[in-house]
């Protein structure tokens, strides 16, 4: 209990310091972290809790970005646009869920994988509404660059917190019990009275609600979006890697994973721009091979034990 309070206090202090003293680069990085915390936590609801590894995250993200962008271009107020984006994503998730959530394993994964591609091409072609491949420009918020940077950090962090809170609430609720049962034995879940179809769709919709809002905020933040940007497959894959890294199916896992992954990412990016994705690929392979339960497996106790052993070996003549 005390440990959690200390962590919370430190986090709050760090956040405040960031807001007060951070330069634009650091603020941008922090906002990206907050965005991925949102995406990873949201993915975890369907991928971790329910055990349905969705590769459609980019679809909801892009859909939210465009829904909001189009609404804003038509004079809708900011918060309404963002909320609408979330609703559009969630509705799409319900429809998509009805099509693919009855499939298991590989088939579901593939089905979800192609959805962002299809949406991207539709967006590309529907030039009159979306601007097609040229992209969409979003109205400016107003205010100096410094204020905007801080504003978006705060907003993105709020959404991230809301997502984590939602995940936490679900984990404790009836829905969470149902999802866990489905994940561990879907047939048995049906037999004890769980409406698996409705439960899965609910999880999918809640997950995509937050992903869509993140996409909408991203669009306003970057001011310009185009289809290959917001429907990019890395938006589907990175949150999964982060959840895996931190621990799939837990509430804290995606948060830890997002921080850890983006930390690595920065490190690699600074040192090798050319081989960036290559190193990421190796990281992913290492992750799956050696840390299947995520960083959770690596406890501080183990770490100090290893260091101790290392020292002893070095000390011996």
């Amino acid at each position, binding site marked *: 209990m005390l440990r959690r309070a200390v962590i919370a206090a430190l986090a709050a202090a760090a956040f405040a310091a960031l807001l007060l003293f951070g330069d634009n680069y650091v603020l941008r990085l922090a906002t990206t972290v907050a965005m991925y915390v949102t995406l990873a936590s949201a993915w975890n609801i369907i991928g971790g809790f329910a055990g349905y590894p969705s590769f459609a995250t980019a679809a909801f993200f892009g859909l939210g970005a465009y829904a909001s962008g189009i609404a804003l271009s038509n004079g809708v107020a900011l918060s309404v646009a963002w909320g609408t984006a979330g609703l559009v994503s969630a509705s799409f998730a319900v429809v998509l869920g009805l099509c693919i959530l009855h499939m298991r394993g590989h088939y579901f994964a593939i089905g979800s994988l192609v959805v962002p591609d299809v949406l991207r091409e539709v967006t590309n072609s529907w030039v009159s509404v979306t601007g097609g491949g040229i992209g969409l420009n979003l109205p400016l918020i107003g205010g100096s660059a410094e204020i905007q940077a801080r504003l978006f950090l705060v907003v993105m962090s709020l959404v991230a917190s809301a997502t984590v809170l939602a995940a936490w609430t679900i984990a404790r609720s*009836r829905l969470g019990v149902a999802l866990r049962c489905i994940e*561990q034995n879907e047939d048995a879940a*049906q037999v004890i009275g769980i409406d*698996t179809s409705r439960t899965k769709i609910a999880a999918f919709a809640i997950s995509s609600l937050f992903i869509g809002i993140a996409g909408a905020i991203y669009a306003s933040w970057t001011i310009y979006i185009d289809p290959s940007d917001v429907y990019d497959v890395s938006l589907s894959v990175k949150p999964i890697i982060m959840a895996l890294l931190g621990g799939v199916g837990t509430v804290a896992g995606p948060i830890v994973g997002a921080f850890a992954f983006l930390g690595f990412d920065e490190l690699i990016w600074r040192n090798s721009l050319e081989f960036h994705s290559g190193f990421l690929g190796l990281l992913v392979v290492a992750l799956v091979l050696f840390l299947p339960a995520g960083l959770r497996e690596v406890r501080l106790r183990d770490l100090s034990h290893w260091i101790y052993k290392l020292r002893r070996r070095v000390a011996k003549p």
Partner: protein
Amino acid sequence: MTPLLKLENVSRRFGGLLALDHVSVSLGRGEVVGLIGPNGAGKTTFVNVVTGLLRPSSGSIEFDGHRIDGQRPDRISRHGIARTFQIVQPFPRLSVRENVAAAALFAGGAKTQTEATSIADEHLAFCGLLADTNKPAGLLPLAGRKRLELAKGLASKPSLLLLDEVNAGLNPSEIDEALRLIAAIASRGITLLLIEHLMKVVAESCSRLLVLHQGRLIADGPTQNIMKNEDVIEAYLGRRYADMQKGAGI
């Protein structure tokens, strides 16, 4: 008085194979009925069709006066039919208590998780699993997992409980224990259908027997009569043995 479960001309095909062949039977409230038959006779298909895991290819199934054929398994379980699996199906990483509480929460109609947990504890006590409440279900030995299946079935608050080979793989003392439990459940007024291979279990627990053979219901009556029934003996042991029995005047 409406029968609790009524099957009328129920058939189920798998491609060319007729796993259930125009089966008609009624179960009354409070009965303890055994369903026996050689391997491959269609006993588990019977259970799967009644509980909604499979749709009947033809025929109708009524539960408490309402048609249930074609409904989804979760709906049927909420109506009040519960079953155990021959190959036990727990939620392996949930604790024993969480397994049973889940059944109480969804099929059993508990309003809150706390209520579900206390209901679960009751059933765990009844089934002799209190010592293992916090153990992950996947780590239980076979006898424990069978009792967990039973506890989950009970927590679903069924009026009809289908037990599919609940004694398979148990040693004699474990079987005696299971029989005691079955008797206790029956005395609570729950209608039971036991699918069994073990004659001893069936003879002791069931007042009535149904016999399936190659998908057809070949016998339906009081236990003692069925055990001596020619067709039944022939189905299990073959024509020659049945003739031998007849010849010996048994």
